[in-house]
């Protein structure tokens, strides 16, 4: 063989061999041990990295799950976008029972549209709800209502909420919302609440957060809750889902059966629902017997 070729082959071969040995030793020396379960769980998770679980991304959640599994209890951890199916699959892999959880959705609890709560002042500043909230009580005068500047829309990573141009209130899209809770944290007035989706998507809620006395609240918004308590009385005896506190009614989502009886009795119309409520049957008219008049003959 040509000495040049032989020399080149041997030199290159030696270089390649030493590189391989060095890489092998380095890989062994600096190897990071990772629990293989984390990778497997990561495959089961949705991979949206939304932070709804409260951990940094899906990897953070997977690590927390493995840690909790070693302690034996993963009931405190929940993945909102994945829902019950994901948690069930994770539970099956880890060999731990997971309870069924109801699907939830973000609900906007304010009915102060442009028409019902007309603006009395003008706001001139950056379109950020936190800044406007810190500055004053709001264009329509209600210190508890939606400001309409869209912090919740900006923070949603699932495109599940948008600002309605006509009403200046945010609207949650049922199909896309995964109840990760980002909008709840973003709202400076805590108007958005995570509530169960309800059987067949039927849910009822009080569309107001105003804790002022009734007269004051109504001055700013026509559909404000005035704390009259009619809905509390109307709610069926066995259910009693509505409570009154601080001039504001609240429907407990765990007790409410979405019968809708409270909606028509509200004098201001501040109870909202995802279905049309049944109209109350009109009270039967008493037979009007005309006064018999003796016909004088």
């Amino acid at each position, binding site marked *: 063989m040509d000495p040049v070729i032989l020399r080149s082959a041997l030199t290159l071969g030696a270089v390649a061999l030493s590189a391989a040995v060095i890489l092998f030793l380095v890989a062994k020396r600096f190897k990071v041990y990772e629990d293989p379960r984390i990778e497997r769980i990561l495959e089961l998770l949705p991979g949206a990295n939304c932070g709804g679980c409260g951990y940094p991304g899906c990897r953070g959640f997977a690590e927390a799950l493995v840690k909790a599994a070693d302690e034996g209890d993963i009931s405190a951890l929940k993945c909102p976008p994945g829902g019950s199916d994901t948690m069930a699959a994770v539970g099956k892999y880890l060999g731990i029972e997971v309870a069924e959880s109801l699907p939830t959705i973000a609900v906007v609890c304010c009915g102060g549209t442009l028409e019902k709560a007309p603006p009395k*002042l003008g706001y*001139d*500043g950056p379109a950020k709800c936190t800044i406007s909230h810190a500055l*004053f*009580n709001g264009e329509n005068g209600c210190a508890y209502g939606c400001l309409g500047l869209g912090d919740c829309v900006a923070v949603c990573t699932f495109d599940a909420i948008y600002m309605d141009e006509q009403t200046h209130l945010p609207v949650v899209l049922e199909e896309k919302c995964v109840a990760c809770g980002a909008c709840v944290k973003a709202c400076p007035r805590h108007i958005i609440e995570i509530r169960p989706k309800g059987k067949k998507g039927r849910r009822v809620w009080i569309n107001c957060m105003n804790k002022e006395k009734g007269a004051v609240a109504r001055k700013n918004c026509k559909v404000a809750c005035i704390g009259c308590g009619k809905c509390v009385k109307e709610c069926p005896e066995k259910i009693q889902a509505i409570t009154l506190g601080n001039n504001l009614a609240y429907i407990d989502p765990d007790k409410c059966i979405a019968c809708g009886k409270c909606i028509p009795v509200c004098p201001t119309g501040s109870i909202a629902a995802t279905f049309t409520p049944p109209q109350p049957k009109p009270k039967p008219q008493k037979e009007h017997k005309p006064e018999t008049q003796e016909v004088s003959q």
Partner: protein
Amino acid sequence: MKLRTFNQGGVHPPENKISADIPIKILGVPQQICIPIHQHLGAPAVPVVEKGDKVKVGTLIAKKGTAFISANIHSSVSGTVAKIDDVLDATGYKNKAVVINVEGDEWEDTIDRSDHLVPEIKLEPEEILKKIEEMGVVGLGGATFPAHIKYMVSNGRKSDTLVVNGAECEPFLTSDHRLMLERTDEIMIGIQIMMKSGQVDRAVIGIESNKPDAIENLRIKAQQFPGIEVIPLKVKYPQGAEKQLIKALLNREIPSGKLPLDVGVIINNVGTVLAIYEAVQKNKPLIERVVTITGKKLKTKGNFLVRIGVPAAMLLEALGEEIPEGTSKIISGGPMMGKALNSLDIPITKGTSGIILMDESEAWRREPVNCIRCAKCISVCPMGLEPYLLEKLAEREMFDRCEANAITDCMECGSCSYICPAARPLLDYIRYGKVNVMRIMRERR
């Protein structure tokens, strides 16, 4: 003669001192007043009266809270306490206040209501301090810091100079100017009282050069009082900010996060000096102050001596005018640092220095465009910060970097937003960043 000023930053908004020639008039009392219990920096005062109590002018109605920084509040009218309730204030949010139905105008017997001057200072320094604290005197320059705290020497820090702030750098406001012209003698004696209390030999009064009559007046009077000097200053905003004023007058710079006491200075507004004179020599608590009411569309303007708690709408009535057609903004304070009000029915407090009515042509801001990195905001910042960077960081909520860039040094003077050619809301975002950084700093502790 070259006028002194601070050498870093500053802007020149149009002065509009259109109410400077109008003498102070005394405003009457309405039928009901409403005195908020939180009119000063620090903890709110605690009410010591109840519904139905009878009060006179000067009666203590709220005592200073248990916190170190707090102040007393006294009634400014005589009458009956109607209720102690949450009342809408300037922001539209509710705050606790004492509402009093006015009956007559009876004053407490201890108050000396005579007009004559009392030049002799009979009290000792500690007694002066106690008197100032008792009478609820707070800084009337706008910050409403309880005055007695500034005179308490702590940690071995001692002061050698008293600075009196007569700059009044905000456009439109003229209440301090009128005070310096009309109550000169009392101000001089007030300064002497403060010099005795703080145990300093030297006092310097800083006045912007757009008030030549006040400068002359005070200079002539100061010749009779040893140790008091009047120094005219160049007109530049924010000359009246305490750090900038001390730098201009004495060439001392207060380090970041420290107080004037750390460079040996006690500083007070001219209005506070008058309040101290009245508290110490006349036993009169802080129950009234001079407020300017002005606006380009108003036919007449005014400087009024107003009782605390009177609704601002009374000032307009006293001028005999209605709200001008096209008024779109009502400002409490000056246009650079004041608060926009949502109605004229809010009460005048210890910190209200003026009410300005703005026309719709000036009320709305221009549309903002991209930052063009012209660095004008850096050249006007009196504290040497970089507003464009702080705005960007605050918008993206990178609060740790905001803290590293000294966002807490910002005194919210507004020069950066004023000068920005792209009309960016710099100060709005810097405030947002500041609030969050301070919250993070509190949580850390």
